[in-house]
């Protein structure tokens, strides 16, 4: 296994763990945590590809990570605000009970 593949495998594992949490856990905040883990896995991927690419001086993957972090910050802020708003409305943050948009 090359170093890049190791990194990618770790990242895939991290992604899968985050995904598993996001789809199996009941609490909205945990889903959010899972999503953050998946984002981090993606960041790790990007950094690994940047590190092992032929032209790392272009900094593309690196800058991509910075932007993705900023997006993650925005996403977390809005997501948590939504969770708090939902909690205030329905007095729960259990996602099994939040299904207003049922068709």
């Amino acid at each position, binding site marked *: 296994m090359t170093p890049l593949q190791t990194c990618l495998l770790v990242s895939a594992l*991290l992604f899968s763990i985050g995904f598993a949490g996001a789809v199996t856990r009941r609490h909205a905040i945990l889903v959010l945590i899972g999503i953050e883990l998946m984002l981090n896995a993606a960041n*790790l991927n990007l950094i690994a590809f940047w590190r092992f690419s032929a032209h790392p001086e272009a900094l593309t993957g690196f800058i991509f990570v910075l932007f993705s972090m900023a997006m993650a910050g925005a996403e977390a*802020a*809005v997501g948590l605000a939504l969770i*708090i708003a939902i909690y205030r409305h329905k007095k729960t943050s259990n996602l*099994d009970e939040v299904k207003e948009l049922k068709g």
Partner: protein
Amino acid sequence: MSPFFIITAVVTLLGAVFAMSLRNLVHCALAMAVAFSGVAAMFLQLDAQFAGFAEILVYVGAIAILIVFAILLTRSGETPEKSVLTSGWWAGIAVTAMVFTILGWAILSSSAVPKDLPAAPVATVKNIGDALMTKYVLPLEIIGLVLTAAMIGAVIIALKEDKKDNSGGEQ
């Protein structure tokens, strides 16, 4: 792969597993902080110093705290007695297994992976700043706008909206 990398990878993955599996939400959040620190350490190993520090600043310093606050605000800091899993959790596990299998297979079977390790790239702060201010200045501005919009949106969403409570002395 250096032993340091393996250690950090293991710490990261363990933190992630705990973050996703512990019953108490606060413990989950703290485990998540550990996982993020591990990711930051991996960034450092991959010569991405700036990204590593930014990771700590953003995830451990900000997002973890934010999540902790949200946990307390939604009064879910106590360990729940009931099940913590959704009704269809087994389907989720199955899908996760599929996802990991396919990802692992794709990574291992890929032929487009360079065999030799290139020299450590230089990502000094000056280079990053130059790139951000020249080539990537438009995305940077847009991200600034997005962050501002997100901040305002979050504040508005989280504001108390019922007007009946306004007369009370609640601060």
